[in-house]
């Protein structure tokens, strides 16, 4: 299945960088003030939005995290789509807005803002040092294991061996790929296409040069678009050993180590092929029922049943057979002519 686990704060790495320098911190503060002023000027008081979200007689457990405790206070500002600032170092826009609807559907929907952002955000304006909160998915999940947060230790170990950890040119962590305010794992039994699309979107959002008709570095790969839509990037870009069908490996491989061997999928019973094939067929059966799966299963992989040797022998025998049949027929024709001539 696709990436199930993740944690808070997508904007943190950039925010960290900003906070390290006082000037950048000041810029954050100035912008926050500015953005607060915008709705006031335009007539839409931020408090209105917060009021609209206040729960009507629900108990604390039922109240979504974003409406609980002092989260409505946070959302007075952070609901705004334009809540952002430009980071001085990277010159990139750092988005600080939270989409309430998306958050409510995310895997972390039960968490109130300050369940994760515990330090220094109680008061407004926030201190510049507050942004240096150093949130850690693995630690947080370990602490909240009793609440059902999945253990991320294995994923963390895999990540440390990945090309993202070893060779990335800029700081790379969970948040580089997973936005905890929006993240939601793909459900079991989701259509295969949806699983593939969701998983690959994570990669393609950064690796934009791969989302083209002739993807960079994949020039050797025939029909890249069809591959992107049918198999997950991680099928070839993670080690074959120790795979878990339902928890994708985070030990992503760089180009030199990745599978470039077509026959790993398109022939023989390699581990890669068996897993992919079974996974797809099982997903489909769960989703469509037995007969529909039998009829419409698209788990077939072109050339999967190929064996060059058997094909060569088969073609040779068929060719010989056809030639033999033609020769035999010609012999019969000669015999027939001879018989007619003798009459």
């Amino acid at each position, binding site marked *: 299945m696709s990436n199930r686990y993740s944690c808070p704060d997508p904007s943190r790495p950039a925010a960290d960088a900003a906070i390290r320098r006082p000037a950048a911190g000041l810029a954050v503060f100035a912008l926050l003030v500015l953005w607060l002023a915008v709705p006031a000027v335009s007539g839409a008081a931020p408090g209105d939005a917060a009021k609209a979200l206040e729960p009507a007689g629900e108990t604390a457990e039922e109240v979504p995290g974003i409406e609980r405790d002092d989260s409505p206070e946070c959302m007075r500002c952070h609901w705004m789509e334009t809540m952002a600032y430009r980071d001085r170092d990277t010159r990139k826009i750092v988005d600080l807005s939270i989409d309430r609807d998306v958050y409510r559907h995310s895997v972390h929907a039960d968490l109130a803002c300050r369940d994760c952002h515990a330090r220094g955000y109680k008061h407004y304006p926030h201190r510049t040092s507050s942004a240096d909160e150093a949130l850690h998915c693995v630690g947080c999940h370990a602490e909240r294991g009793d609440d059902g947060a999945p253990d991320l230790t294995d994923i963390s170990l895999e990540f440390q061996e990945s090309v993202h950890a070893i060779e990335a040119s800029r700081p790379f962590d969970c948040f580089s790929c997973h936005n905890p305010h929006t993240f939601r794992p793909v459900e079991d039994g989701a259509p295969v296409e949806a699983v593939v699309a969701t998983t690959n979107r994570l990669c393609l959002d950064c690796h934009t040069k791969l989302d083209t008709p002739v993807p960079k570095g994949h020039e050797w790969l025939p029909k890249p678009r069809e591959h992107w839509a049918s198999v997950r990037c991680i099928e070839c870009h993670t080690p074959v050993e120790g795979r878990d069908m339902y928890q994708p490996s985070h030990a992503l491989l760089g180009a030199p180590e990745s599978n470039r061997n077509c026959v790993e999928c398109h022939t023989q*019973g390699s581990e890669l092929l068996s897993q992919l094939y*079974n996974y797809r067929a099982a997903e489909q059966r769960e989703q469509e029922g037995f007969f529909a799966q*039998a009829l419409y*299963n698209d788990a077939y992989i072109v*050339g*999967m*049943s190929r*064996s060059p040797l058997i094909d060569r022998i088969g073609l040779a025998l068929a060719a010989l057979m056809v030639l033999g049949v033609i020769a035999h027929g010609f*012999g019969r024709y000669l*015999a027939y002519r001879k018989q007619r001539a003798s009459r």
Partner: protein
Amino acid sequence: MTELYLYPVWLRAWHWLNALIFLVSLVTGISMHFSLGWLIPFEVAVPVHNASGIVLTVSWVAFIIGNWVSGNGKHYLINLRSLPMDLFRQTRYYVYGIFVNAPHPFHVSEEHKLNALQTMSYVGVMYVLMPLLILSGWAFLLSPSLPETVLGIGTIWIVAMTHLVLSWMLLLFLIVHVYIITTGETVMTNMRAMLTGWHRERGPQPERAGDDAG
């Protein structure tokens, strides 16, 4: 002139339907196997092949039941005592006799409509290869329920290779089958029999009577 009604309606209907289903399976299978999008687009070939495979299963079961109920199954019983000599005579006819206008060693009758070579190949095809082909096809469809490996080899690979080898063997059979039906008394004698049900042959002792019904 001898006239024998050898192929009742159900048998002819089954034969031609089965031929159609088999050809559909063959063409879609080849298209998928060799990735021949121009022959049949992949998205079409997959469901059509799956459907024809399922119908082929039904067809095979119908053949078995039909043979059992109608008594047609007797033609597929092998007479072990006379088999070696019959096979020798039949083979000698095809590789030599047929070219020198020798008389056919076998004559069709109500009791025996198939010569020894035919009996052997049809028993091989319908009672061995075809059920194995069908089983391997279903193993593909139900692959998630199979163990991932058997004796350390990927199950899917075993299934795929079995399906592939059987498909090739049945293609070879089809080539020979289509040709051999032309070796009757005339080129069309046997084809006509499978179309009309009647096997017609000149004279009680024809000089070069072919007879085999394909």
